[in-house]
């Protein structure tokens, strides 16, 4: 070192050169990162600019919404940020309202597409037997058979349901549609409320709440009928978003301390801002956004001649039905495989080696191009099993195989993150391997597993190539009416219409459809990221 130093410190230029080199390197790294961010901004910018048309709105439109929505919300956020108790309640309030809205729209749309009677029928067939078994097991001393019996009863229930479907469904269909909707939305919502309250408070409080909420449901139906509209959607909305909100409000207001009750205002401020803005906009006759994301786009079906009449409702519902069905198929298998690999598979011996092989295989499956999964689905489900082409269940199963590696890997990571001391504690108290899994490991790993599953949904909703290969039709004019019926998906319509030479489609309808798809994707990935951040912080 000593011999070097004299030459190193005397030649000033060399030092400066060194510094310049380091500086240049850092600038290059920053440039690369900025480029990555810029790509994201440019892509979202172009598509949302064309989809929303912000230039069409007059300045007063922006002023109105700034005054009613952005200003109050911003001020409220600043207020909430400094108060942890208010923030906690605020988070819960937004979760109840936004989550409730998403759930109720989902339930209504899917129920409406697949027929509410069918959904109710299969819901009852799948949910009633395990419920009865659980109730019976409460009064029976030996409970070790409950778990397997529940699984068997669900399978049996659905199987028996499929057999007696034809003779029973005509009887169910006598009832009005809203009664069917109530069967699979209001009744479970009240049931869950009852269970939660009887666990955390007492049975009397639970009974009181449920009766109150049921009276509310009857009121909703009565008002809707009085106004002459179909009570189905209001009822679903009440059960999905209303019930959790009411329960939350009652809980916070009726609690001993009222630290955070101001947090309940968050959703109120946002909703009233939107309503007030819309009212003022109409009152003063101000021109709003020249947006293509219109009710027509979201609620009508496709038109290839008039851009202003083109909608993607069947495509959106098709995507949602396919994705939910896929989740039902892929989630149990993915989680099961991850449990085996993490908790059961030994590290050594032949079985251990097979386990390693399976893990390498899963890593490879994650890298297989999605078109190849399309070919697999085509030959496996359509050619070998003889299912007709382009039906929902084939699409769901194909996408299920595609996302299986994502679900498995993220579940594995979640299970691996559960500290071994917890397992040891459970074993030490005499629990078996399955009891440890069910009571200790899986509840701990649940947030990570959910994150992975939601990411998988986000991936699947944009998948296009496999759906083209299994020849899902691009344009249909009604949502899929059953799992064994043809359906379509949103990305397929974007693909088909993107090459259109008519600029109203090219820069209008397709941009708006892409905007909808991007929003759905962002909702899912955002939920996953938020969930993960919360979970990692703990």
């Amino acid at each position, binding site marked *: 070192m000593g011999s070097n130093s004299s030459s190193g410190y005397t030649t000033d230029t060399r030092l400066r050169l*060194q*510094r310049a*080199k*380091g500086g240049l*390197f*850092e600038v290059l*790294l*920053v440039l690369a*990162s900025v*480029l*990555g*961010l810029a*790509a*994201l901004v440019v*892509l979202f910018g*172009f*598509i949302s600019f064309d989809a929303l048309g912000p230039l069409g709105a007059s300045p007063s439109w922006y002023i109105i919404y700034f005054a009613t929505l952005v200003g109050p919300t911003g001020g409220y956020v600043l207020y909430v940020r400094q108060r942890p108790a208010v923030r906690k309640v605020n988070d819960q309030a937004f979760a109840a309202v936004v989550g409730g809205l998403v759930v109720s729209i989902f339930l209504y749309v899917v129920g409406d597409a697949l027929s509410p009677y069918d959904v109710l029928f299969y819901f009852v067939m799948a949910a009633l037997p395990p419920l009865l078994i659980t109730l019976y097991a409460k009064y029976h001393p030996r409970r*070790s058979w409950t778990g*397997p019996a529940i699984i068997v009863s669900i399978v049996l229930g659905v199987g028996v349901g499929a057999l007696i479907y034809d003779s029973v469904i005509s009887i169910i269909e006598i009832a009005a549609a809203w009664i069917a909707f109530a069967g699979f939305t209001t009744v479970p919502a009240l049931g869950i409320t009852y269970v939660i309250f009887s666990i955390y408070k007492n049975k009397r409080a639970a009974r009181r709440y449920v009766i109150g909420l049921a009276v509310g449901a009857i009121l909703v139906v009565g008002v809707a009928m009085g106004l002459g509209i179909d009570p189905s959607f209001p009822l679903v909305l009440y059960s999905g978003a209303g019930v959790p909100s009411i329960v939350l409000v009652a809980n916070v207001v009726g609690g001993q301390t009222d630290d955070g009750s101001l947090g309940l205002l968050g959703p109120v401020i946002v909703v009233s801002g939107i309503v007030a803005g819309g009212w003022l906009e109409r009152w003063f006759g101000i021109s709003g956004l020249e947006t293509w994301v219109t009710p027509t786009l979201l609620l009508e079906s496709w038109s290839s001649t008039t851009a202003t009449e083109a909608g993607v409702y069947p495509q959106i519902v098709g995507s949602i039905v396919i994705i939910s069905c896929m989740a039902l198929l892929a989630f149990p*298998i993915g989680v*099961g*495989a991850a*449990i*085996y*690999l993490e908790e*059961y*598979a030994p590290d050594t011996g032949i079985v251990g080696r097979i386990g390693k*092989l399976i893990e*390498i295989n899963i890593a*490879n*499956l994650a*890298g*297989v*191009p999605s*078109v*190849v999964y399309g*070919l*697999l689905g085509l*030959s*496996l489900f359509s050619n070998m099993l003889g299912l007709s082409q382009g039906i929902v269940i084939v699409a769901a199963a194909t996408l299920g195989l595609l996302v*299986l590696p994502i679900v*498995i890997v993220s579940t594995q990571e979640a299970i691996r993150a559960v500290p071994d001391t917890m397992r040891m504690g459970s074993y030490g108290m005499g629990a*078996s391997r*399955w009891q440890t899994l069910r009571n200790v490991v899986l509840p701990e790993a649940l947030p990570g597993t959910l994150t992975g599953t939601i990411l998988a949904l986000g991936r699947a909703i*944009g998948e*296009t*190539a496999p759906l*083209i290969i299994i020849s899902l039709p691009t344009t249909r004019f009604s949502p899929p009416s059953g799992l064994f019926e043809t359906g379509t998906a949103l*990305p397929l319509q*974007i*693909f088909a219409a*993107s*090459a259109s030479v008519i600029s109203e489609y*090219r820069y209008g309808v*397709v*941009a708006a459809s*892409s905007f909808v798809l*991007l929003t759905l994707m*962002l909702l899912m990935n955002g939920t996953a*990221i938020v969930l993960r951040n919360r979970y990692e912080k703990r």
Partner: protein
Amino acid sequence: MTGSTAADLSVERDEFVQRKERLYRWIFAGCAVLTVLVTVGIVITLSLKALVFFGAVSPVDFFTNTTWDPLINGNYGVLPLISGTLIVTVSAAVIALPIGLAIAVYMSEYASPTVRAVLKPALEILAGIPTVIYGYFALVYLTPILQGPLPISITILPTPVSLAFPFFGSVTLSEYVFVIPSLRTFNALSASIVVAIMVIPMVSSISEDALNSVPDSLRQAGYGLGSTKFDVSTKVVIPAATSGIISSYVLAVSRAIGETMAVTMAAGQSPKMPYFPDILANLTNSIETMTAAMVKIAGAESLGETVAYESMFAIGLTLFGMTLLMNLLAELIRRRYREVYD
């Protein structure tokens, strides 16, 4: 425990519980084995159909014929498709690999936690954007933007120049203008750019994991010897993480090979052999990749079990073989050349 008999104190679980535990084990094992069956299923179904195809078209013809025209004339030469895939993959890799690595180095060595908190989710969202949207973006927005300044001509030699050499006589160089030609509506360039954007997050996240797993003691040792941050990053950290970086590169290339929608929508569906001396023409013209060819065949209406239909599986098998090899290679590199620090 006083006075109890052994039977009362049995630590054995009862028969039913034991059987239940075993049942659950088998169910979970079944789920894990299912993933292997998926791979087996891919190989078998693709091979069976591909065999039927190779019964009608000889493999030699498939791999040497230079025309791909399955739907009209029935020419099944896969070379133009492989050429299209390679053009997109190579150009995307040229863009994405350096940028991805630079982002990874920046995130792991330079960025403050705040910057990371913005950059990481942004990259995750970039990775989650559906490929059909990338395709739409490339076709409708990117190509017109790139098209703007084109064609560009750069005059390199304005006038003919005569050079006199002592022994060869004189050579006359004619005037030379370097031209970047204008883009077609469908072109490989914008497809390559969006594929690059698509794989950047993959390169950066896997490389960043590799860089992060280099122990801090190595960096401290470098600083202790008087190195600058630049020296530590380029001469200590990056070499120590080489295996992870290379495996991220291989995975990214494999992803680019299998990419379907963006290249189908932006690069078009006209299969051709590469232009050789005029390399830029490969980027500005429409091409067809292997994946795009499959989409085109699948999209053709009323196609029964014809040779064209079977050819889709032959391409699929080729594609699967290529990506499988690359994925295995990435796994191998990561395992074999990983530096283990304890």
